[in-house]
């Protein structure tokens, strides 16, 4: 599996970028920030129309059967323009469990963009609770609460990581519009991410027939993390361009501020962060695509590189812009918010650091 994009892949990127340039814009995101639980419907319609929801789903399941690399190209481009909805990411992660859990119909609906599926895994501050507090009974009744579910305010369905009557972890599929489900949008630093608290009180769900649900949940989380990392790479690159352009144009003390080394070096550091994150994400995608045993550690590396890089890039871009950078109308805060939101959405730094440390410890 090559580390260089093919001509076809480069064409896909061009097409995605062209399409998005007429669709997603900062003004829309700014509007979405005002209230919780809303997303960019125009962008999402485009994503469905363009078949981005179908890319990594097999042709037999109604998808386009493209590789992870193409999927990550789309993720990166959506991250670059701060697209106002997280459903490509959640759908990409959920598809993995739906495939293994033998849900061809929903998989097809997900690929076709008819259904939005979220991952309801995290409890409290644990992204993947070893011993979930949410339970599912033999009758399929779910009880308990999942907080901060990415896309949960809008999604049609969710995959719930829960504990069955035997105390064993299970993944259960639930219709979020069914009786016994309450959802409350959570106001957040980036409301377009549609975080929600989900309460289950007697709602009925279907346990997916999986050999090792805990392992599948972990794999889904890794896929979510990889998608978010790729969005982050797009964000870093957007910051890099924005900062360099501004530093070339803005004058202070009689010269372009890009001549001051403090500014110049801060921007070079964004470049370095971008190169690290970009190579790392591609590396993880290739290893995951290859089915390597140790792919999770490389996903962890990609996620950490993307999060560190994006957090840094957004803060540095703001600082380079000075006063303008901290106004509502300027773009830096959109990246500053998105970067942090991405970093929290699929497990914080400690979770992923531990994936790497445990992998090397055992090696």
């Amino acid at each position, binding site marked *: 599996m090559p580390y260089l994009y093919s001509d076809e892949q480069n064409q896909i990127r061009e097409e995605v970028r062209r399409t998005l340039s007429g669709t997603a814009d900062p003004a829309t995101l700014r509007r979405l920030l005002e209230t919780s639980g809303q997303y960019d419907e125009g962008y999402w319609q485009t994503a469905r129309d363009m078949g981005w929801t179908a890319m990594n789903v097999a042709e037999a399941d109604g998808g386009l059967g493209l590789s992870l690399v193409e999927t990550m190209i789309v993720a990166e481009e959506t991250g670059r323009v701060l697209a106002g909805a997280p459903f490509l990411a959640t759908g990409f992660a959920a598809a993995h469990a739906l495939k293994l859990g033998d849900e061809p119909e929903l998989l097809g609906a997900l690929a076709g963009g008819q259904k939005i599926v979220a991952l309801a895994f995290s409890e409290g501050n644990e992204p993947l609770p070893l011993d979930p507090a949410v339970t599912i009974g033999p009758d399929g009744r779910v009880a308990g609460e999942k907080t901060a579910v990415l896309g949960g305010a809008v999604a049609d369905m969710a995959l719930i990581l829960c504990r069955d009557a035997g105390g064993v972890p299970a993944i259960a599929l639930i219709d979020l519009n069914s009786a016994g489900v309450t959802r409350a949008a959570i106001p957040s630093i980036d409301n377009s991410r549609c975080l929600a608290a989900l309460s289950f009180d007697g709602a009925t769900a279907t346990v997916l027939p999986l050999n090792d649900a805990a392992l599948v949940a972990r794999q889904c989380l890794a896929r979510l993390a990889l998608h978010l990392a790729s969005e982050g790479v797009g964000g870093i690159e957007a910051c890099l361009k924005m900062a360099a352009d501004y530093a070339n144009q803005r004058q202070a003390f009689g010269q372009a501020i890009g001549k001051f080394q403090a500014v110049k070096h801060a921007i070079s550091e964004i470049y370095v962060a971008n190169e690290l994150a970009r190579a790392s994400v591609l590396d993880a995608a290739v290893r995951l695509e290859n089915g390597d045993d140790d792919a999770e550690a490389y996903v962890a590396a990609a996620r950490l590189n993307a999060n560190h890089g994006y957090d840094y890039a957004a803060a540095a871009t703001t600082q380079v812009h*000075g006063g303008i950078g901290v106004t509502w109308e300027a773009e830096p805060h959109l990246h500053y918010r998105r970067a*942090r939101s991405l970093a929290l959405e699929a497990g914080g730094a400690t979770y992923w650091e531990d994936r790497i440390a445990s992998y090397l410890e055992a090696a």
Partner: protein
Amino acid sequence: MSDLNAFRSQVRTWLAGHAAEFGVEARRGLSEADDLALARRWQRTKYDAGYAGISWPKIYGGAGLSELEQAIFAEEEAKFNFGTSYFGISLGQPIPVMLKYASEDLRQRFAHPALKGEEIWCQLFSEPAAGSDLAGIRLRAVRDGDDWVLNGQKLWTSWAQYSDYGVIVTRTDPTVAKHKGLTYFWLDMKTPGITVRPIRLANGEEDVNEVFFDEVRIPDSQRLGPVGGGFGVAIDTLMIERYSAADEAGFGPALDSFVSLAKATTIDGKPAIEDGRTRREIANAFRQQRALVAIRTKTFMALQEGAEPGAEGSIHKLVSMRLRQRLSAAAMDLKGAMGAELDPHAFPKDDWAHSWLTVPTLRIAGGADEMLLNTIAERLLGLPQDYRPDKAVPFDQIQPSR
């Protein structure tokens, strides 16, 4: 020291007695208009009790005490999160400059209403093309008989939307070097031709403004300092570095609150407080915050012995704001996915996400990190100034920002 301790305990008691009426709980959820109204009542209450201008002369409504009592009061007051920010600029720079440069009549006229919170002043300095570079301002003032006519724009003017008066730096001679053609005035913000437009900041708040000047006419009697001497008065304004109330947490949440959070959350199923990463985060914050407090204590003692404030303010701002940004992000990490939650009614002092969202503004406003590091290098360490190609060039020959 014991007198000061007595003063501190007296102040603490008095403040505590007013916390319910004016403090953080009374403010929560108020609209900005209601919050301002409450803040004005609080300012008046302080004035009546002699706490509004502790270090000001009695004839201007002050208590005639020292900067130390002033600082003690501010430190104690900060603990209750009263609404004081509306008056910070007003009483911090414009009025002290008026007390230095204006006639005795004007001093009497303006000092009392400002101290009572009845009148608010703003400081019209920064412009779109002149942020860090104050001498680069463009707003023109042209002499016309006994008047001056102002045209142009100011930016980042704190609380201009509520201000009754302001002090302003203008360019009166663009044919001389940038530092030399400036003149300083005070003015009534209701003078015809002034338009104030609030700017929404990244954290959603609107404490700064654009202010447009369209043929604004003011008399020469409102000039402060000589024609062409405006840069000096402006620097004087900025140098009114009083020993200001500092907060080692950079006015973000206290470290204790991070420790409590670490006790209440887990990492990989174990208490987060036992995880080495959390422990390092706590230790890094403690060591730096305690050092800032020690620097403050030392400065305080030096002030008592008559020293002038030095670079402590720059160090404090630089270190406390970086730390606040880092610790806020770490706290959000500890909370996991819920770390992104942003309660619209929380204050930055109580809430990590708000704190994190607001801190970039503070790393730029009032001296960006880069400018603080320059100042330390040039003023304290004797390092040379950066190259400044526009220093000796007539202002009208400098290439503008594209």
